[in-house]
């Protein structure tokens, strides 16, 4: 599972990095005379509603998906680790305050909050990352808080405290490393979530705006051509599903590695 997931993800990264350069077509160049053309040897995934090569656009779209995923996971995990470790390590009122914020944000259906934020901030790539990070950090914070609550009772942490180490150093050097494996698993699964969320928002017209080749935007454009050109829908959707499956495999595989309870 780990290897299959890793292979899919590496393949997508390679596609994103080298695909647009290798392809003989430009993702934005249009051939209106050949619009909606079915897959052929020269265009394996066919042409879209403006006569653009779908395979090249999928390769370019992979950059957006991976970029959004990486940005959301980075921002969310850093924020989540900070607030989670502070809440778990210090406890008391700080923990109460952070936990209540977590409860409220957890009570909100995530994608709905993202839709709401993008709706008011306006559709753009930056706002998508912002909206998804606002909902994304909560999961990491809850996870790290739990680990920090446990870790602060460990003898080596108590020893560091007794030796006079400052709280910031204890959290950074001793508490966070105990949570790190779980955070890596969460981040891998979070990549899948962020990619789907970005595609959903773009599909609804709230994410990346045309002519940028986001997979969600491509699917949205395909909706008008279900009858005459189903390949506009099939290939971008397949790209999303395969990459999400890849990250899910990778996350599940990593979880099995770091959590002895799930090993059989």
């Amino acid at each position: 599972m780990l290897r299959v997931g890793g292979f899919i993800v590496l393949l997508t990264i390679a596609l994103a990095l080298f695909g647009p350069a290798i392809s003989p077509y430009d993702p934005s160049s249009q051939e209106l005379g050949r619009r909606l053309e079915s897959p052929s040897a020269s265009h394996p995934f066919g042409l879209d509603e403006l006569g653009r090569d779908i395979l090249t656009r999928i390769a370019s779209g992979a950059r957006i998906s991976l970029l959004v995923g990486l940005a959301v996971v980075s921002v969310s995990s850093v924020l989540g680790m900070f607030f989670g470790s502070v809440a778990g390590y210090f406890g008391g009122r700080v923990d109460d305050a952070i936990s209540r914020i977590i409860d409220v944000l957890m009570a909100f259906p995530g994608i709905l909050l993202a839709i709401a934020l993008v709706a008011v901030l306006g559709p753009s790539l930056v706002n998508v990352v912002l909206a998804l990070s606002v909902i994304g950090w909560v999961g990491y914070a809850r996870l790290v808080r739990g680990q920090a609550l446990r870790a602060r009772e460990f003898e080596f942490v108590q020893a560091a405290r007794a030796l006079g180490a400052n709280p910031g150093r204890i959290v950074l050097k001793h508490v966070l490393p105990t949570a790190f494996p779980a955070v890596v698993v969460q981040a891998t699964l979070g990549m899948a979530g962020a990619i789907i969320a970005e595609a959903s928002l773009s599909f609804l017209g709230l994410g990346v705006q045309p002519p940028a080749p986001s997979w969600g935007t491509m699917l949205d454009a395909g909706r008008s051509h279900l009858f005459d050109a189903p390949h506009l829908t099939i290939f971008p959707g397949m790209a999303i599903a395969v990459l999400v499956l890849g990250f899910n495999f990778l996350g599940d595989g990593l979880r099995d590695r770091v959590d002895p309870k799930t090993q059989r």
Partner: protein
Amino acid sequence: MTAPVLLGVATLVFALIHLVPGDPAQAMLGEGATQEEVSKLRTSLGLDRPLGVQYAGFLKGLVRGDLGRSFRYNTPVTQQIRDKLPNTALLAFAAMGVAIAFAVPLGIIAAVFKGRAPDYVAMTAALAGISMPNFWLGPLLAILFAVYLGWLPVSGSGTAAHLVLPAVTLGAALSAILARMTRASLLEELRELYVLAARSRGLSGKRAVLRHAFRNSLIPVVTIIGLQFGAVLTGTIITETIFAWPGLGRLLIQAINYRDYPLVQGCILFISVTYVAMNLLTDLTYGFLDPRIRYD
């Protein structure tokens, strides 16, 4: 805990309109609006009042069930929600019905045949269901059943046939999650001593599974059904958009496109509050399924 969470949700929704870059009234009316029109709309939305007064007024309105007036339709937001709610409820419950109908037998078969071909087939199908985004599955189903086979309508509402594709699209992911959960939960119960005791008293394997283990394995499954209701509700936003199903989700997207912020706030608040209420209901349902769990 529910009351502070609801207050937090209401506060977040109230804050939304104030996050609009620049003047929300100007954004709603567009660039061509005159200064007079903008200030009139600001007054009617109450945006000219101090923030604290606006917040108090917003909460007071909520208590009375007043979510403001839709800017586009010029009707109360609650009326818009009331008009669309039955369609969304119908779709959500149909999707949950589809999910349970597929997932529970699939999960039982996978658990009973653990490690054998039916288990692998069922779990691979479940994994595919989880990984397939509904905005892809929906159009794929439409291509197959509406375009190629011509069995079902591609969009709209009004007949039972219109409900099939949206319900299957919306229920697929939940079905996959439930099947995995049913399998895991049932496998755990099957290892318990009471199942062994039932078998040793001469009960058939089928009876031991269905009468004893299955019932106890339902607790986490019901939890997931309850907790996933939020995902189903939010999933309606995309599903309704794909199939032009006239529900709350489509209303929300239309409201966003028209920059009808009071309607956006109303829809988001309503969906969120329903989500919180479903989570509370899920907690309360435990008590019925497991008499050991009691709430004071």
